[in-house]
């Protein structure tokens, strides 16, 4: 039998059940994430032992260690963690509202919108010498705008007496194809140097992250993760199907819109700083479901942590395995994600 703890706050105004098994799994995952975080921080051109890394976190360590960790590695790893958490959480939400285990940000085109926007940004704001005429710091904004515009477009084109999950996914796929065509178009016209730059971005990498990125991404992601957690029970209801959800008193369309916006905000932030890191939004929720079951309140934090671990690990492998060559993290998430995906397709054949 599962054991639940009853948690009541503010004189019963907020209350929820905590599943003991899910809580233990969550703590174990958090420990694993912390472990990967520390190991990743210590590994690279200059190796630093985990103990020293922890010392640096608490303000100790030698000057050299502090420099390497604080100014080079930490921002990048924090961005990787946040990107992974955001993508995984958004993927979980999308799978819930579309009621299909194969839905993910990449497939319904939100990532594609961001890619098109970034390539357009690189193409339109460059002069003849391939130098950008505006600061590269605007690129995340372009990516975010692209993701948000596409999500709205998908939502409104799918709207017809409410949004049905099937229409949402079909129109998403159609628009994703259009975005891909536009991306290729701009890559063909731009100089080849730019095409390869854009290509690295589309594949997804957290290379070159700095503290400015961290100060934007961390609050953004945390706020929307909390919001997603608050809305979690609505995802549970949505998964029952429209009729039952309406029957138990949920305003299905309102929450579907709200949830879509929350996941778009998460994806937008993630692609803005990490590019189109693929398959994380697909894989992480499934792995989490294996561990904690499909009650969304437990699924969301677990899948976010798994996503964070995945992207941090992919980045770690990408920058160490072929060192000094840097391989974008997206290559590794795709190479784990693709076989996993085929397995999923096979497994969900009766869904």
């Amino acid at each position, binding site marked *: 039998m599962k054991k639940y703890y009853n948690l009541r706050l503010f004189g019963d105004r907020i209350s929820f059940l905590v599943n003991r098994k899910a809580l233990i799994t969550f703590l174990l995952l958090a420990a694993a994430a912390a472990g990967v975080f520390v190991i990743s921080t210590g590994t690279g051109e200059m190796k630093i032992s985990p103990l020293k890394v922890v010392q640096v976190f608490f303000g100790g360590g030698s000057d050299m260690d502090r420099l390497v960790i604080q100014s080079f590695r930490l921002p990048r790893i924090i961005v990787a963690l946040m990107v992974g958490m955001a993508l995984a959480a958004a993927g979980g939400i999308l799978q819930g509202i579309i009621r299909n285990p194969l839905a993910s940000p990449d497939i319904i085109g939100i990532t594609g919108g961001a890619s098109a926007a970034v390539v357009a940004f690189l193409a339109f704001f460059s002069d003849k010498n391939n130098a950008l005429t505006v600061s590269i710091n605007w690129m995340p904004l372009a990516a975010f705008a692209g993701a948000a515009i596409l999500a709205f477009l998908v939502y409104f084109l799918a709207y017809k007496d409410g949004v049905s999950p099937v229409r949402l996914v*079909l129109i998403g796929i159609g628009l994703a194809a259009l975005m891909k065509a536009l991306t290729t178009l701009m890559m063909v016209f731009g100089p080849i140097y730019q*095409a390869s730059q854009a290509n690295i971005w589309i594949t997804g990498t957290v290379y070159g992250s700095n503290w400015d990125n961290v100060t934007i991404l961390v609050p953004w992601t945390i706020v929307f993760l909390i919001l997603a957690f608050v809305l979690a029970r609505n995802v549970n209801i949505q998964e029952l199907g429209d009729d039952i959800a309406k029957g138990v008193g949920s305003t299905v369309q309102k929450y579907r819109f709200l949830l879509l916006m929350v996941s778009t905000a998460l994806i937008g932030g993630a692609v803005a700083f990490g590019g189109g890191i693929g398959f994380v939004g697909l894989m992480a929720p499934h792995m989490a479901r294996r561990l904690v079951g499909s009650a969304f309140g437990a699924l969301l934090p677990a899948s976010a942590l798994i996503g964070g671990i995945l992207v941090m690990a992919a980045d770690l492998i990408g920058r160490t395995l072929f060192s000094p060559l840097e391989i974008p993290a997206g290559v590794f998430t795709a190479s784990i994600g693709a076989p996993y995906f085929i397995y999923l397709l096979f497994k969900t054949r009766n869904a």
Partner: protein
Amino acid sequence: MLLKTNSLRWAGLFAAMLLLLVLMSFSIVYGYTDTTWKMALEAFTQFDGTNEHIIIQSVRLPRALIAAAVGASLAIAGVLLQTLTKNPLAAPEIFGINAGAGFAVVITVTLFSISNLQVFTWVSFLGAAVSFIFVYIIGSIGREGLTPMKLTLAGAAMSAMFASMTQGFLVINETALEQVLFWLAGSVSGRKLDTLAAVFPYLLAGWIFSLIIAGKLNVLSMGEDVAKGLGLKTGLLKLGAGIVIVLLSGGAVAVAGPIGFLGIVIPHLTRAVVGIDHRWVIPYAGLFGGMLLLVADIASRYIIMPQEVPVGVMTAVIGTPFFVYIARRGFNQ
């Protein structure tokens, strides 16, 4: 439907053929290099080696022929797929054949350092076939068989998978990017007549065979049970149609690279004109497909002259609104 009697349909077929020829000659005459109708005629009757004549013979003519053949093949493949899967959104690219072909080409360039357009042809044929078969199998396993939703998702997901693997290879190898970027955009220009000649037998076989099975497809479209009851060997027919689809769509992507949405738009358009009888739909769809791709290709030369928009982008821009319209209309009508 627009054409109600058979005599009208014969007349329409004849007119469509004529129009296709007219569009092909437009495609030969109009473009960045100024050429006149007289020059075009002379290039074939009394070739004198001037720049214009060379362009007409070695650039424009192959381009017109390839556009017509590729357009026809993709459209017919679309018709067969929509009938076979009972899915109004089915089209070759939904089965991931474009992404599969693209991935195969990129693998060839990065791992084997081959950048010969002829080799691309065969490799992409193979990639397209593998991807099609894979998506078809994945989409049809399970209790309910081949449902539109499962199929579309399986195809989209396979495309996403191939696309991200393609990207991964391209990131690691930048010179490859330069070589395949143009191919990946989907275009009918810059291809030699040899490229078309290499796959033409397969395309032709596909066209003829699709006409032969047209009557049987009518029976199949009444539903699996009815078709079986009427004595149709549905399994055999599906297999045959599947092979034709692989020949047509694989051949088309091998010559022109990924060109999307033609296979969705044309079948619907054709059915609006001639009804649902496959014996008419297939030839009409072929002609309409050729015409649409020719028009798209001619337009692609003028939009941002002197540069050209890859025609694959043109068809995507034309086709997406249509795709959205059908997705909104729903499956049951």
